[in-house]
């Protein structure tokens, strides 16, 4: 090996080997340590549930809560439902355009599950596709580090293992925490994540027995995911089913609301609107959703996705066909949130089963 590359290789190796034991009662002080230098987005006890929110230690006591996964993903922190792009003002006979002034501090999303970390990879891919990187998304994304918490107890609706994920996956993360009941393992994953080194320096290195326990945890977590489907051919399967009757059946129970899209950590379709009065206004980007009747309604009045049939199909195709065609990745992370949120209990796992079954018969 050439000498020049050796040094670089070494740093990566050191990064890979930073794996510390954090005693159970020290996690909160680790969080406090990080809080001094970063803005932190953490799972917090709210009135009726645990939700991701900014940590404000000067205003609150904080204890890291226990949770499976949270009902709402942390998507909104990088891709908010409403985001001002710029504002405009009338001045005499001119229109003044004011660029958005946003100072983004370095921030950490702490305790994110593997599925949600992978969802940011999907959003990264989308917002950097084409000629330009989306500045509004990346202004925040580039300043954000992700510290994951491996999933010991996947939920009944989880199916990450069927879409290329894993409850213990560190994909997309900068560091990951494994919960071994009486202690945590803190492992640095990415080069960006090496900034965490100084916060965990004082803790002992992991030993073989702990790593073995971690592996046992991982396989027990995998076993808890009851749903399994082989989606290796899903792109081809869907290629042949565009005009199939299954979409009428699948959409029959759909209310055409946007609950699934809005809760989805990877759904990213947006609309741009002007919010203005007679003196000026703002141009804002807002979440859109493909289940709404107005989605893709053209100025002529024609709508290529006029009924629930086309709209239901669009959601499945976008995630399981177009994404593979455009970016060679699936657009779903298997978090199962859409299953839980649907007012008619439409289950995306059932839809995928139908697709695979029907495609095999054809």
């Amino acid at each position, binding site marked *: 090996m050439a000498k020049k590359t050796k040094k670089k290789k070494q740093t990566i190796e050191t990064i890979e080997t930073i794996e510390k034991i954090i005693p159970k009662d020290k996690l909160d002080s680790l969080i406090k340590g990080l809080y001094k230098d970063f803005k932190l987005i953490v799972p917090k006890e709210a009135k009726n549930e645990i939700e991701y929110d900014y940590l404000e230690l000067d205003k609150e006591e904080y204890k890291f809560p226990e949770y499976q996964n949270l009902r709402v993903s942390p998507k909104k922190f990088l891709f908010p439902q409403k985001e001002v792009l710029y504002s405009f003002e009338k001045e005499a006979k001119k229109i003044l355009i004011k660029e958005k002034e946003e100072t983004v501090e370095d921030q950490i999303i702490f305790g994110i599950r593997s599925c949600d970390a992978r969802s940011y990879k999907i959003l990264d891919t989308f917002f950097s596709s084409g000629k330009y990187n989306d500045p509004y998304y990346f202004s925040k994304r580039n300043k954000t580090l992700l510290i994951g918490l491996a999933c010991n107890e996947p*939920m009944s609706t989880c199916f990450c293992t069927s879409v290329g994920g894993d409850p213990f996956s560190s994909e997309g993360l900068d560091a990951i925490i494994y919960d071994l009941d009486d202690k945590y393992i803190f492992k640095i994953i990415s080069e960006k994540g090496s900034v965490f080194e100084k916060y965990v320096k004082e803790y002992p290195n992991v030993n073989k027995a702990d790593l073995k326990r971690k592996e046992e945890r991982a396989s027990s977590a995998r076993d808890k995911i009851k749903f399994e489907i082989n989606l290796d051919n899903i792109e081809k399967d869907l290629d042949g089913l565009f005009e199939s009757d299954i979409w009428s059946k699948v959409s029959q129970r759909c209310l055409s609301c946007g609950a699934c899209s809005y809760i989805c950590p990877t759904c990213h379709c947006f609309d741009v609107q002007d*919010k203005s009065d007679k003196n000026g206004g703002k141009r804002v980007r807002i979440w859109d959703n493909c289940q709404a009747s107005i989605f893709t309604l053209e100025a002529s009045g024609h709508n290529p996705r006029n009924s629930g049939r086309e709209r239901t199909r669009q959601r499945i195709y976008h995630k399981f066909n177009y994404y593979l065609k455009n970016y060679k990745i699936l657009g779903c992370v298997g978090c199962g949130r859409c299953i839980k949120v649907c007012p008619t209990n439409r289950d995306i796992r059932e839809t995928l089963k139908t697709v695979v079954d029907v495609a095999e018969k054809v």
Partner: protein
Amino acid sequence: MKIMEEIRKSLKEIVKSLISEKKVEYVLGFEEGTLPLKSVPFYIEKEEDIDRLIWNEYCNLNLVKFLLEEPHGKKIGIILKTCEIRSLIVLINEKQINREDIIIIGVPCSYGIIDFNKVSKLLGGKEFSEFTKHGNDYIFKGVDFEKTIKLQDILSDSCVYCKDKKPIEYDYLVKAPNEFKNIKEEDFDEYLDVIEFEKKTPKERWAYFKKELEKCTLCMACRNACPLCYCKTCFIDQNQPQWFDKTDDLSEKMLFHMTRAIHLAGRCTGCEACTRACPEGIDIHLLYKKLRKMTKDRWNVDKIGLGEPSVMGSYKMDDPQEFMVKED
């Protein structure tokens, strides 16, 4: 819950006869969902499917909504409770559905329907993997907890204050072995929750609705679950002119919910499918119920019968007019 099982048995017999005698193209009911305490709409077309039919306290949708998409002339059977039959009556009165197209299988309502959102709130958002029932106690189990919740605390609010148990318009009536009573043992006013809410100051009431509506994501699940929201193009979806700027500002959320409420004045039958459909667990049923109470107080109509004129669509010389602006 032996009674519910008997109801299910009679339902199955009725559905079987409707399908075998080809009186309908399908019957709309419910089947088990993929998660505990969830049901899904069930289009029963074949006799062999009938066994999957369920009837219980978590048949949470108003199935009348699914009739709106169907063409006139198509014969459909549908299993409904009283408040849902009332919403079908509104649609028939408003000439959206032909009475003769629909075979109504009326079922007397037991204690009412569980609002899954209330369960989630009481469990702190934790997932339960199973539940068991002991009388009116529901025991929920999850990975690290077991919790007993009283049915009264998870029933839809409308059901807690409902006295409207007997179906009013039907082609088949399922006989309930005993007459169903409300979960409240002592007598009560149907509008008690509204009356209590009215005692609050305007500031407190505003704070309440503000707090609830701030949670809204404008997903339209409430509108889309409501059988009486059937406008071909809802004002929310109209963009020429645009009434609504689609941002999630509180003013826009208020605009949507207030307009929807006013559109439902004198029409809403209080089935509360909207509240149960809300993914955020927003409680705004009081807004709709208040409008129901207003129509009752003013015109003495809070429940509309088949063929009766609508409250907002009709006029009588002696209508109260205290809300009209008068010239001095």
